[in-house]
């Protein structure tokens, strides 16, 4: 890994980072992608389901296939990917500090940085939550779809967002049982089509319920569920025990925004998108000049929108480096925005679009051209 010829460093080789790298490399920028994992692709390679949206958004294509084509695209365009590389700091002079897979310490000096660090899954605390067998839904998905290991015969899923619904389905596909899916809110959080699918397979979806505690000596052996009233208080006497070997927690994600915080970016707080987020403008540039963001770090959405944001950031960073004429860049960016806005429609999409608009409204005008 050398630094002399690096224009842009992309941190994170998930859908947003790879898309940003591809777009910037296509426009002639020298791009280096850093990822702390030993495989690229972020969550794409465990997403065995077909994506939603239109043909433009690669609807009907499965996540891992999208991952394969993104990797092929970045490789063809000459973006380098360095795996096992942990970025532990970005200093005020924009130097990027990295520990490489072979334990070397590097200080890189790119002209632009694109942060595509994604999000981490939220935890939930309850008695017994530290017992082996309690894990995040994402971890269950990795075990089942990547490593082909079923964590337990019977699983309790907590949370009815799309992650909880899809992972429940994938547990069934792998031959496991989902004893119940509990959701504290009175309504299902994710898409109706996903919920209907697991309902048809006989998974009981209990809205207005939560896990009260998990029991077991060395590992999860069972759980006590409890009904909640309209103020989320446990209803006495409503407890019931179920026998399970795994509890999967799918209660939302939080953007991994620490590096943006280190860059001194201005932040805003939008609970609907995962909490504290760096504000950015229509070019995905934060208030720290030359630092761009894309994907879940800008607010938790889906891989489809993450890829479009990545493309936007890639084009904008290449444009800022003079690799593409502003007029040409404007056409490219407009096309991405059209696809992004098309993704952010409908009952769920419009709410996200409104929330995202709040971020860009705050971020606009930070950089006078």
């Amino acid at each position: 890994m050398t630094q002399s010829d690096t224009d842009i460093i992309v941190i994170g080789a998930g859908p947003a980072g790879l898309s940003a790298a591809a777009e910037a490399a296509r426009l002639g920028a020298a791009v280096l992608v850093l990822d702390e994992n030993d495989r690229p692709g972020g969550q794409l390679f465990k997403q065995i389901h077909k994506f939603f949206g239109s043909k433009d958004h690669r609807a009907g294509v499965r996540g891992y296939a999208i991952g394969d084509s993104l990797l092929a695209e970045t490789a063809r365009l000459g973006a380098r990917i360095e795996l096992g590389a942990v970025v532990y700091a970005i200093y005020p002079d924009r130097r990027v500090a990295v520990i490489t897979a072979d334990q070397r310490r590097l200080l890189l000096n790119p002209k632009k940085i694109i942060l595509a660090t994604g999000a981490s899954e939220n935890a939930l605390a309850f008695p017994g939550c530290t017992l082996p067998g309690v894990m995040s839904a994402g971890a269950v998905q990795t075990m089942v779809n990547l490593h082909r290991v079923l964590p337990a015969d019977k699983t309790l899923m907590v949370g009815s967002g799309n992650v909880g619904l899809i992972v429940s389905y994938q547990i069934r596909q792998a031959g496991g049982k989902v004893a119940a899916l509990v959701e504290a809110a009175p309504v299902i959080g994710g898409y109706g089509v996903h919920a209907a699918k697991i309902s048809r397979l006989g998974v009981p979806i209990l809205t207005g319920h939560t896990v009260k505690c998990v029991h077991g000596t060395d590992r999860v052996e069972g759980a006590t569920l409890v009904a909640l009233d309209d103020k989320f208080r446990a209803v006495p006497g409503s407890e019931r025990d179920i026998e399970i070997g795994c509890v999967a927690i799918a209660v939302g994600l939080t953007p991994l925004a620490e590096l943006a915080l280190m860059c001194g970016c201005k932040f805003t707080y939008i609970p609907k998108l995962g909490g504290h987020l760096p504000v950015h403008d229509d070019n995905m540039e934060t208030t720290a000049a030359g630092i761009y963001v894309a994907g879940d770090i800008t607010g938790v959405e889906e891989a489809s929108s993450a890829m479009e944001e990545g493309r936007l950031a890639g084009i904008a960073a290449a444009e800022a480096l003079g690799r593409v004429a502003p007029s040409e860049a404007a056409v490219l960016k407009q096309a991405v925005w059209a696809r992004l806005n098309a993704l952010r429609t409908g009952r769920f999409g419009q709410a996200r679009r409104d929330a995202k608009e709040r971020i860009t409204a705050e971020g606009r005008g930070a950089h006078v051209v």
Partner: protein
Amino acid sequence: MSERTADVIIIGGGVIGASIAYYLTKLGVKPVLLERGDICAGTSGACDKAISMQSKNPGLHLDLALESSAMFPGLGEELGADLDYHRYGGMIAIENERQMAIMEKFVERQKNHGLPVEILSGDEARKRQPAFAPSVIAATYSPADAEVSPLKLTFAFARAARRGGADIRTGAEVRGLLTNAGRVEGVVTQAGEVRAGVVVNAAGVFAPAVGRMAGLELPIKPRRGQIIVTEPMPPMVHGEIWSARYIVAKYNPEMIRSEDPEAADLGVGLAAGQTAEGTLLIGGTREFVGYDTAVTPEATAAVLRHAVSILPFLAKVHVIRTFAGLRPYTPDGMPILGPVDGLEGFVMAAGHEGDGIALAPITGKMLAAYIAGAETDKRLRDLALSRFQQAK
């Protein structure tokens, strides 16, 4: 504009200001403490936890430290707070014959000043501190070194002062000094005037700005210290550890240059200790970079390089955080305490550099006694600002 009257105003809510406020209330004086930010939000909240005796220069410096040290054991009970105070002793690792020659003289002088300290052979040192590298040829050991949580100490002083009637105000920025005919009459804050016949400048690294309000040039400069925090782990080191280079860096950084030029530039020396939670605090640097509190990769690397050479197990430990604090440096390494010639009622209490935590109790006690008129410690004469003014 609101106006109110107090006996004494203390500017600065660090460990020094809080200590003075507390010892004043013990003497029946109820001061107003004005802090621009928050209690312990500056230097006192960005340092390590050592109450070091061995790093003090034999003489007045060590005398004060030993007196202060004797006040610590009962302090938690007196303030009604757990201060994480322990006296586990401390060791200074010696890496070569040149350092040995310096440390032998230093230790001899410290002994003559009443500090219990001895030099152990490399093997004896490793028996006491198994984490030391084989390259450590000898180490000092003193049972007098101790440790305390600087945050808990500062807050405990402030809370006890408040219970004793002190008016402690945060978010109160002093913007001007009221003087009349060579006498201090109070201060101007963003929320109005506060009048008092005594104003104590305990603003630490910002003391020069307060001094300028009084037309005084104070020879205090911010000196940055960067500190590294590791992941928590089982007990790995016993008590506080320094390197001989730390002592050299404190008093004469140029002597390090032949060993490591970059370390000399950054004033790198090892000061390490493990917290009750298991994390290791590893310092540090001594850098003149104005009021910049950024951490730098160069310092992190230089400090860790030096730390690993003395404590090799650190090579396999994860670092979780780095931070920097500004220490109020003075040219002779001693604080500026007490009255100031030509401005009656203006009292200095700043410039402790890295000794503020260790010297806080004695500083508070001495200055409170002076301000309350109970007793004027003769040593205040040697610690006064005038020592720099006469030198000119």
